[in-house]
Structure formats: structure tokens, C-alpha cells
């Protein structure tokens, strides 16, 4: 199952990050998880929220460049080799991990949740399913995060 993630273009300067966060706060939209990629000049603020479309509209209306990207949430065993096992499953498929970051919040004991952006999400999903690696969908994610 794929999850929708929002990416927001930010300039790399003080205050740039607070602007979209304040907007979302005012609209009572909770950021379930986020990560920040940065270069010297600009950054990409990536976030997952419950109502992606609403958040996207809000940000766009306020002048942000926003893009919806599909990511895949995976449950990774919190033990040595946990992440390696997943990457092993993708070995030889030509699928590239463009970036990944971890989810905060409560998850099944002994596991952590990681969000992956794959170069080819659909093929990645199929490969993972074949290897019996389960993915976590949006609803499930929300449920787990809320406990």
C-alpha cells in the first residue's frame, strides 16, 4: 500500500520552515511525520498528514510549491540486519531508494516504521509482496500513530 506524502519547496533561510507549519497548525492539520532535505540554498520539506488533499490545497493557496509523492511505509525489525533484509529483497531489481526516513510514534513492539521513496513504487510494492514484506497503509498508519 502506498502512502501519499507532501513535498514543499523551501528556501534555506531562517523562518522558511515555520511558515508552512503555522499554516497547518491553524487549520488543525497534524503532521504525522516529516523530514527535511537540505542543500546550501534550498530545502525540501516532506511530510505525511491525514488529509493530504486538504493540506495540499491549503499550502498551494498560500503560494507554496507542493508536490504529492507516493511513498511506502515498511515495518522493519528493530534488530541487526533489519534494514538489510529489506534492501536484500530489492537487490537486482534496479529499484533505487531515493530517500527514506523513519516514522515517529508507537508501532508494533520490536519494529520501527520506515518511509521509503523508491524510484519505481509499483514494482517495489510487487517485489516486497513476493518476499512477504508487509507494508503499512494510510489508515493503518493513522491508527497506529494515534495508538
Amino acid at each position, binding site marked *: 500500500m502506498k502512502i501519499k506524502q507532501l513535498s514543499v519547496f523551501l528556501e534555506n533561510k531562517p523562518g522558511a520552515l515555520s511558515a508552512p507549519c503555522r499554516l497547518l497548525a491553524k487549520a488543525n492539520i497534524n503532521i504525522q511525520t516529516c523530514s527535511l*532535505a537540505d542543500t546550501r540554498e*534550498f530545502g525540501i520539506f516532506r511530510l505525511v498528514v491525514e488529509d493530504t488533499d486538504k493540506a495540499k490545497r491549503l499550502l498551494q493557496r498560500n503560494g507554496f510549491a507542493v508536490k504529492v509523492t507516493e511513498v511506502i511505509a515498511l515495518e522493519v525489525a528493530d534488530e541487526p540486519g533489519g534494514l538489510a533484509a529489506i534492501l536484500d529483497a530489492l537487490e537486482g531489481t534496479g529499484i533505487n531508494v531515493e530517500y527514506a526516513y523513519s516514522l515517529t510514534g508507537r508501532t508494533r513492539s520490536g519494529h520501527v516504521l520506515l518511509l521509503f521513496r523508491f524510484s519505481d513504487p509499483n514494482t517495489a510494492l510487487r517485489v516486497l509482496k513476493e518476499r512477504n514484506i508487509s507494508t503499512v497503509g494510510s489508515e493503518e498508519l493513522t491508527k497506529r500513530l494515534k495508538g
Partner: protein
Amino acid sequence: MSKNRDLPPMHPASAMDFLPPAQLRDVQFTRLKGMVQRAFDHVALFRKRMDDQKLKPSDLRTLDDIVKLPFTVKTDLRDAYPFGLCASPMSEIVRFHASSGTTGKPIVVAYTQEDLNDWTRAVLRSLAACGVHNGDIVQIAYGYGLFTGGLGLHYGAEALGASVIPISGGNTDRQIMLMKDFGVTVVCCTPSYFLHLIDRAVEMGVNLKELPLRTGVFGAEPWTEDMRERIEAGSDIKAYDIYGLSEIVGPGVANECIHQAGPHIFEDLFYPEVIDPKTLEPLPDGMEGELVLTTLCKRAMPMIRYRTRDITALEATRCACGRTLRRIKRIGRRSDDMLIIRGVNLFPSQIEAALLKVEGTLPHYQIIVDRQKDLDTLEVQVEVTAEAFSDTVGALEQMKKRIAHSIESITGLRPAVKLVAPRTLQRSEGKAKRVMDKRIM
């Protein structure tokens, strides 16, 4: 090593600089008639404009009748790209040069062998006017190639008998090394580049004041008396202003004499007028307006009343050197939006044409020109649209590269590209403010 500032005897070619005014006008009128006839016979655009005004070459009865002739503007050259304004067959054309147009295509200029000879002679007279002679070692740090600066100065200096170092632009450390090792006495480049050379020489531990270098021939961009003072104080040389534009010929349309009182126009080759850029009416000497030039001898590509867009005034007052040639007041601004960056002409419309080739980058952009360590910098800020925005850093960096490449291939200038958030670039009265020129000259 010391600086030898002895003045050479007058070069024979400089005799034309001292023609009595009445004789100069005779020469100008004879040449003008011949040139207009050639243009009328061989250039369709010119002939059509003459026909529209019911004018014939024979209607030129005196030199002052030149004001009856139609103007030529930069877009005429663009529309005629590449050879539409040529008056000579390809068998007689021996060289092309090109400079920035207002959009993607350059402005092309053509020369016959005789044109090159005339140009060489104009540059020779330019150099001779500021005391350059056959004993000099001349380092030419203007770009060679399509740009007229390098080759123009090159042939003029060689014809003068000077020893030429055709180093072209860039590679500052090597410029300074040769300047020192060869005992260079004359340098030709843009004034801002020379200011950069002064700074770099200090960093390298080279004292330009102690080198034989005594003369700089600077042009291809507007500069000020303040820059002249900084150059002369920083290197103990004399800095002279050379003026020219490729549409007319290249450098050597005008050059300062040793009195540094503004470039003397070689009026026997290039006929100057100053007009009011709004009414297009001719203005008397001393009044500031747009410089209009007519080539009196050019064969391959005659230019008739070419509007240079440079704002200046013609000074007819007598110069201490005794030249009868009028001078142009230092050119500081233009009547169009052309920018000159590191000697390269840049129109904001060229940036727009470049961005058009990179999807999702228009319409909001801004051009920021600055001068850092005496070198012009060009930054293009582009607002990231939702369409162009991509979720990965790599893709955005790639977009920056594509923008920079597109701009460089059209303008010849490599810009710094900065992606900025939507709605951050300044809009004034609904219309975007495209250019910020922060240079203080």
C-alpha cells in the same frame, strides 16, 4: 624595471585625425554618397526604407542631408539574421563576427578584406592616439572569437608594429605571470577585469606599479572616472577609454588621446550624430542624447544611422592634442535595457528566451547583477512553480544546471542560478521587476 613614458613620434596613419574640418566634411560626404549608393543597390531593407520615404541616393546634396536617411536598429539586424543586411557577395566576405541579439539568435556582422583593413587602421589610430607604439608589448586580454574585442585589438596592434600577446580573456594568474615575465607595457581588456587583475596581483605578491606596464586600453563596458582613478592609483598606469560596437565595426570607433578627455571618434570612417531618443530629432553638439553612427566605408555590411542606444554628447571643443575629431562624453547609460556584463551584452529578453526552454521556470524570474572583487556577477533567480518542483534534491539541482546551461548557450555568460520559493520575487505595479543592477560604478 621602470616605466618608460616617452611619447613616440606621430604615426603616419594618425594624420587623418588632424584633417581641417572642411576637408574632413568633404571626405565624409564623398564616402557617404558611395556607401549609401552601395546599400541602396544591394540591401533590400535599406532600399525599401528609402523607397518608402521616396528618397534616392542622389537626394543627398550635402553632408547634412544624412538626417533624411532612415534609422537602423538592432532588431533590423536580428530580423536579417544571418546575412540579410550584407551588401557584398560571399566571395568578397572574408570574416564574420557576432554579438548578443535581444533573443536567442546573435547579431551577425560581416567584413570584406577592405573592411578589415579599415578596421585595423581604426584600431591602429586608436592605439597610436594614446601613445602606443611599435616598441610596445601589448597583452590582449579581450576574448578572441566571435566577439570583436580580441581580434579587433589584435590586428590593430600588429599593424602598429607592436609585439602582441594574444592571451585572450580569463586565467588571471597566467595573465599576471606573462605581464611580469614579458615586461608587458600595454594591456587591453575590460576595465572591471583590470581592477580584478590589480587585486589578484596583490594576492600573488606582484607589484604592478613596479612593472614596465604603463598603458591600459579599456572598453567593451561602461566605466567611470572613479574606476579610472582606482585603476591608475592601483597600478601606476594611464587608463584610456576605447569605444566601439560590433554592429559598426568593433572596438576602434573612438579612442581617447593622451589627454583622456573622452574618446575621439574617427569621423572619417564613422559619422556620429546625437539624437533625442524620444523624438528622434538631431541634437546639437554638447547636448546629451542617443549616439547614432553611420559607417562611411563599410562594404560587407554598411550601417546607416544605426541607433547605438548609448547615451552621450558630442564634444566639439578643441582638444589639447589638436585632433579635429569630435569626442564622445563618457558613456554611462543606455536608452534600452541592455546590460553589459564582463564586456558581454545581455538583454533581459535573452534570459526569458533561455528560460522558455526549461519547462516550468517562467514567468517569474529576476536578474541580479553585482560586482564582487571587481568582477561582474550574474545571478538569475527563478521561482519554483508547482509544475517544475520535483520532490528530490537531485532533480532540483538538475533543473538548476539545465537553466544555467540554457542561459549560457544563448548569452555566452554562465550565471549562478538560484531557485526561490513562489511569490518571493519582487513585483512592482503588477509588472515584475526583472533586473537588479547593484553595481556601483
